[in-house]
């Protein structure tokens, strides 16, 4: 573990973070690099040439691929060595997930197996359960699926109608119910299934395909990721041995939510892979396609698109790996007993629930943006199945829906910040008091220019944090516990928090590159950060004003608008040349420029 300061979850909103306290993708170790290259080589040789075959959704082929990833160790990154896994850090998890993310439908098959399918046992399984299942999940002998969703329990995940009743001899639970949208549903050998014991105790179970009373329904016909299996899973008097209860009776929500935290971070990393592919495919096509006697890559609007795709991906990548390393650092300071205790691990990950949700929302929207621009650059051909853009466009869309919709995550982000603030787990109140006294002396917006190429951006990140703090404080004060009901306000606060984490993660990365490699080598990093920050400042200010408009009126509101305008006063920079230099590099190398 590097010598980084450990911040608590959400602390980035109220503290200054230094470049040396964050991990950036350029910090990856030799081992990390090899792990990433191993996964990339697999995807290039086994997945990309077989995408059409994968799209046919044949169980035997999916199984053979999962076996191969098992042989390579790519299924067991998060599984401890003593249970047949590789026991690696979360940075490695993200690197493998990112590389596999370029693997179209198989990415979903693989990540459901290794993530939400396997992790509940890693974190919450008993010794016997871990010994029984994990080695075979790591090797790919068994495929896993995660069954939470039901027709009336989607975003409202705990509203499960599935029931579990202990048999009269006390040996088995009898499960009844129907789960829907289950990834790997037709292929899985092991299912993590939630059901309510005695009608109200939400509980996790490990259910094997061979148990009496479990079956898969018909394959769903989907918009995208057509090569992955998605079916209902039907429980009809399904007999599950009592020793297959996962964790404790009535504690299923802990499994569900904790696993989703890491699942969301993994999703945030998995979208970085295809975003990079989209940039590369877009550049190749733009270099080949000629109109008006010129390659379309020579046109400014195409350059603009290539640059924007890369800038978004840069931020998504920066914040996902920053979060992964923060989790690793926190896991690293657990004592020996804690390190081996899955539930302790899950708790350490939960600390960064806000950051994990941000990675999910920002990442999935980044990929959707990239594939949309990809289709646009391909023009008419982008709409034709023969070209890669069409499939990528369809495959991307699910990411904003599963692992908690982006709407649910947008409620969770400010909701968690506010809750932790009120519990004083996150010292938001102190930060607010400090900000108020700063405002009185009028020092909150003052900016001393220095020579560093990023000093203005550093200043603006601090300002945006202050604007958020002041807005969030006002919303909580006025709306009290009703705030959760005012979803539009929550969404605006969420957007502010997401943009702040993105701009700061990008900024710290560029700053670290600038400090270690010099201005010339950090040129593309600096350009990305300047453009992004330039573009989001008005968005943050506008959302802050909208929240104030909802909670204040009259003279007070007018004063708040003035304060925001004063704080966010910022002379826009000329971003066209910056976007162009990023685009030129993409056009030359035909790949993501970082």
């Amino acid at each position, binding site marked *: 573990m590097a010598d980084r300061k450990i911040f608590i979850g959400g602390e980035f909103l109220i503290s200054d973070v230094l470049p040396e306290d964050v991990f950036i993708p350029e910090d990856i170790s030799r081992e990390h690099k*090899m792990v990433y*290259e191993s996964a990339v080589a697999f995807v290039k040789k086994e997945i990309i040439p077989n995408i059409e075959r994968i799209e046919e959704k044949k169980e035997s082929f999916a199984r053979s691929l999962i076996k191969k990833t098992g042989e*390579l*160790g790519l299924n067991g990154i998060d599984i401890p060595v003593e249970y047949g896994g590789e026991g*690696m850090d979360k940075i490695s998890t993200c690197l493998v997930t990112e590389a596999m993310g370029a693997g179209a439908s198989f990415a979903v098959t693989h990540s459901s197996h290794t993530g939400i399918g396997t992790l509940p046992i890693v974190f919450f399984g008993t010794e016997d359960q871990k010994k029984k299942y994990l080695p075979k999940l790591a090797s790919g002998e068994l495929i896993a699926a995660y069954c939470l969703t039901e027709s009336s329990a989607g975003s409202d995940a705990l509203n499960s109608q599935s029931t579990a009743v202990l048999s009269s001899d006390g040996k088995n639970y009898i499960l009844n119910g129907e789960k829907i949208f289950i990834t790997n549903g037709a292929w899985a050998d092991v299912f993590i299934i939630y059901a309510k014991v005695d009608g109200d105790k939400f509980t996790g179970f490990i259910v094997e395909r061979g148990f009496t009373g479990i079956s898969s329904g018909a394959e769903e016909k989907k918009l995208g990721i057509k090569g992955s299996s998605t079916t209902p899973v039907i429980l009809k008097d399904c007999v599950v041995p009592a020793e297959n209860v996962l964790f404790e009776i009535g504690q299923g929500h802990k499994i569900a939510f904790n696993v989703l935290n890491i699942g969301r971070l993994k999703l945030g990393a998995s979208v970085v892979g295809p975003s990079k592919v989209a940039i590369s495919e877009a550049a190749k096509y733009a270099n080949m396609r000629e109109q008006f006697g010129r390659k379309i890559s020579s046109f400014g609007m195409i350059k603009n698109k290539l640059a924007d795709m890369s800038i978004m991906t840069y931020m998504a990548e920066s914040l996902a790996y920053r979060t992964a390393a923060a989790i690793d650092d926190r896991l690293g300071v657990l004592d020996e007993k804690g390190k081996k205790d899955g539930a302790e691990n899950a708790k350490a990950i939960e600390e960064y629930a806000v950051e994990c949700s941000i990675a999910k929302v920002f990442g999935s929207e980044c990929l959707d943006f990239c594939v949309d621009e990809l289709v646009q650059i391909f023009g008419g051909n982008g709409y034709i199945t023969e070209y890669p853009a069409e499939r990528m466009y369809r495959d991307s869309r699910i990411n904003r829906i599963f692992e908690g919709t982006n709407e649910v995550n947008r409620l969770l982000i400010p909701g968690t910040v506010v809750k932790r603030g009120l519990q004083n787990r996150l010292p938001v109140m102190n930060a607010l008091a400090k900000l108020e006294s700063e405002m009185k002396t009028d020092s909150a917006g003052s900016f001393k220019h220095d020579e560093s190429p990023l000093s203005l951006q550093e200043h603006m990140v601090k300002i945006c944090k202050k604007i958020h703090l002041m807005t969030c404080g006002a919303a909580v004060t006025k709306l009290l516990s009703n705030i959760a009901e005012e979803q539009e306000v929550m969404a605006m606060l969420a957007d502010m928090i997401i943009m702040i984490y993105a701009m700061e993660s990008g900024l710290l990365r560029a700053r670290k590159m600038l400090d270690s490699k010099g201005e010339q080598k950090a040129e593309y990093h600096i350009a990305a950060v300047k453009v992004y920050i330039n573009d989001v400042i008005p968005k943050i200010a506008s959302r802050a004003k909208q929240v104030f408009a909802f909670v204040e009126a009259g003279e007070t509101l007018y004063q708040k608008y003035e304060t925001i305008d004063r704080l966010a006063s910022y002379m826009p920079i000329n971003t066209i040349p910056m976007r162009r230099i990023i685009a030129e590099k993409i056009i030359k190398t035909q790949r993501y420029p970082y």
Partner: protein
Amino acid sequence: MEILVCVKRVPDTAENEISVNSSGSDIERGDLVYSVNEWDNYAVEEAIQIRDKVGGSVTVVSVGDAESEEVLRREMAMGADKGILLSDDAFTGSDGKGLATILKSEIIKGKYDLVFTGAQADDGAGQIGGMLAAMLDWPYASLVNRIELLDDKKIKIGREIAGGNQEINEIDLPCVLSIQTGINEPRYVGIRGIRKVASVEIPVHGASELGVNSASVGKASAKISKVDYFVPALGKGAELLEGSIEEKVEKLIELLKSKGGIK
């Protein structure tokens, strides 16, 4: 069987758009992605398979700068037992003979039965195997695509010759073989292998450890120098077939018939 495999870090031709720099003296190297030379991967795989069959060890060696260490480590993660980096400022700019001189100095320090090179390197001239064999005074076979172990004195090898024909030879040990792609299917690098080698120290041997006279290697001693790089002008003769797939197939068959390709 003690086997040494020479490997090289080269620009990855699958990953890069290779272009000539403005002065025409070299390719543009600013944004290149590097990887292990593809042919070398086959050589290492073959060495690993032989070792797994009859025992012994596989050593991978590379002449290059500190960054070449990553290809050695990659091949060790694949299964090679040991890596050695031959690196010295004096080695920079060596021609084929210079590189063979450096490699020979390392080889004679060990007791190797087999020395493999790739048939060629992406950025090389395919000289090293033959020169090494001459310097070592060992027998040499090029373009080897099949190896069969006979005893500890002799092996049988297959060579690819003109027209895709095969030639089978017996060759005395120790010997140098340049390995052709297709001899095997190189394995992937697995995570377990990576974990095993991630923190292994890879020894670096410079001119003095190798007893190489600095004047006999490097740019100053090179008798071959690259004087120009250019992309050839597109010639005529290519024809793009148009129409539906069926129409294209029809036209292709007609063309092949008219040129005598099929009857």
